[in-house]
């Protein structure tokens, strides 16, 4: 296993000069590459190294670093090894290459990421809407998406909920506590 893993690392690093590796225990190897390298490295992994199966594509919003991280997980049925390929995309202009010509099912993941994170895949052919019908808000899986504010602004209160009580006020009233105004900004 260790031998196969080191061969994989060696071959990838020879072919892709921008790849940095990170080793994990058991059957996992991770690489980080520039986003321009993604189609090439995935083609290489699939066609030359036997990673025939695309397990998953995932996205992480690194809000503080102003970047998205896109992760491709591929699997080699012969070597029983999985490879994670990480890349970073600028959050302000999240554009990267479409890879659904390598694996057709990537199309579904890309549609989801387009809708949930707002990442544009150049050349992606798919209907605009995926899960969110008539969505007008910002991509909802972004960390700066304020779910509560969106819900408040988008939906309206149906009647019948006017009897809702505030816990703190209920207890305050019952016990005769007088909460000073300056303290109220710390109330839940």
């Amino acid at each position: 296993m260790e031998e196969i893993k080191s061969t994989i690392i060696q071959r990838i690093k020879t072919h892709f000069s921008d790849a940095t590796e990170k080793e994990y225990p058991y059957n996992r190897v991770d690489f980080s590459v520039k986003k321009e390298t993604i189609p090439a490295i995935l083609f290489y992994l699939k066609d030359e190294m036997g990673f025939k199966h695309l397990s998953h594509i995932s996205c992480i919003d690194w809000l503080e670093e102003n970047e998205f991280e896109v992760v491709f997980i591929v699997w080699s049925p012969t070597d029983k090894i999985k490879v994670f390929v990480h890349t970073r995309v600028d959050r302000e202009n999240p554009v990267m290459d479409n890879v659904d010509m390598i694996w057709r099912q990537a199309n579904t993941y890309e549609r989801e990421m387009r809708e949930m994170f707002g990442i544009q895949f150049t050349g992606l052919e798919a209907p605009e809407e995926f899960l969110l019908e008539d969505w007008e808000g910002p991509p909802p899986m972004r960390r700066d998406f304020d779910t509560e504010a969106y819900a408040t602004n988008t939906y309206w209160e149906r009647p019948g909920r006017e009897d809702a009580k505030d816990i703190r006020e209920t207890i305050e009233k019952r016990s005769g506590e007088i909460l000073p105004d300056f303290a109220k900004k710390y109330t839940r």
Partner: protein
Amino acid sequence: MSFDLKGTLKPLTALKQFGKKPHTLVDVPSIPLEASDHYRGFHYNDLDECIGCGNCSTICQNQAIDMVPVDGIEGKKGDSGLRPRVDHGRCCWCGLCVEVCPTGSLSLTKDYLYVSDDPDTFLWTPGVDNPEGKERISFFSTEETSLNDFGRIPMPELEGMDRVKSFAEVVLGYNEVQARAEASRCISCGLCTEACPEHMHIPEYINAIARGNDADAVRIIYDNNPLPEMCGKVCTRRCEDVCAIAHRGDPIAIRWLKRYTTETVKNADMIKEVVNPDIQEPNGYKVGIIGAGPSGLTVAYYLALKGFDCTIYEAHAKAGGMTMYGIPKYRFPEESLDKQIEYIQKIGVKIHFNTKVGKDISFKEIYSKYDAVFIGVGFPKPWTLGIEGEDLKGSIQAVNFLYEINNGKTVDIGDKVIVIGGGNVAIDAARVSARLGADVTILYRRRVQDMPADWEEIEGAEDEGIHIIPQAIPVKFYPDKKGHVKAVEYLKADMVADEKGGRPKPVPVEGSNTIIEATAVLGAIGQQGDYSFLEEEFSEKVKIERGRFVVNEKQQSTLDKLFAGGDAANRSADVISAIADGYMAVKGIEDLLVKGN
């Protein structure tokens, strides 16, 4: 509601699906499929477990949960009496409400089908409207999966056997990082404020600490407690008993967080600067206060802020009452107290020390001199056991013993000390004796779990090597040739259930007499009031029942301008109740003098 154009037209967008080929399963199963084991369907709430903290309602990002009163559920300490009701038109079944529920009462079930002709049945109170959900729970939280943090940040303390070497403070206090982490565990429900006799603004000051704003926390605390460092160290903290997090974990360390906050202001000048109290112009009213204990100091502080001229008469050389002379210094160091007294004096409260009312000044003089009088004299006189040999040399009352030690005197107790009693005074006397180098045994007539002392104090005593003999009733003290106590005889007791439903009673077992050696015996079975300073003309008019002043909800006694508080008026016998009494008396005195009712 005005006409909602958007809401009316929106459903029409579904027409865009018109003409598309539907995806239809060929073989629709005739029996509805059972949902998977962890399916997130409709909510279920165990109404008895739920405490109405409202954490589910707060976390809900869709604002789908309201807290509403439910028939048959009364609010009480530790339970708001409200229960969550879910708007199923908004719920997205994310399950966050379940994951933040501190008690674990809220869960999701496998049920996901609900058909009704009435479009207004979207509001449900889980547990009330679907009691059958109990059998269908599929998604719930455990101590491990809950998003609440159930583990308390441990308080650094001196090791048990190191403590007995000196009177150094046992509890070392949180540092900033620890305090912020502990404060962040609070879910700010506020159930604790009802259990606190003084109704301190607990969620607000804890939140201020969590957000890193200690100065605001100090201001919020001083809003209704002028002795927070005292409470931060020795409070009986009934707030922590009802903490929502305590249902499945350790309660938030409310007392230690208050302690942390008050320690960020290092001296009286700093307190004044941070609290920056709004002291009103003198209003011409004069109030006399007897006793500089927690209740008297509270009355003086808040009345002084309102422009009253306050004078305290204190029999001893220092203020603080029992917290100065009763509580040992390893629990409540003198400099902590001094700092708070100095601050109260700084805002204009006058304290006459070493002035015992009834001896140095008559009560009558005070009563005629002031517009209102507050009595906070506490319970200074110990109860005696009433058994043979109690007046021998070496048989000392624990409160007197603590008074002498706290006053810097020495008391000869030898190396084998017996303490009689199970309250905080008994434990304090025992732990002080251990620090003086004695081998200490506590005799208590009931079981350890019946002891009225704080469990932390009892544990602390055990850590320090103090031996507790429960169910032991002392019957006789034996003298040596010089008339000094040398041994104590006690009977073992059986606990017999009380038919009236009270505490089980200890009943002595005939012939179980045991004798243990002693060089000193400290009696700590309780104290009582001493109102001998009241002249006859007053003692006739003011109503005293079972050793306590009879007062109304504003702490007013049967004499209009006489108010009372603290141990002399309430049965709780703790600092925070005394402060609460003082705070209520401030309202009473203000109403009487300024508002005229």
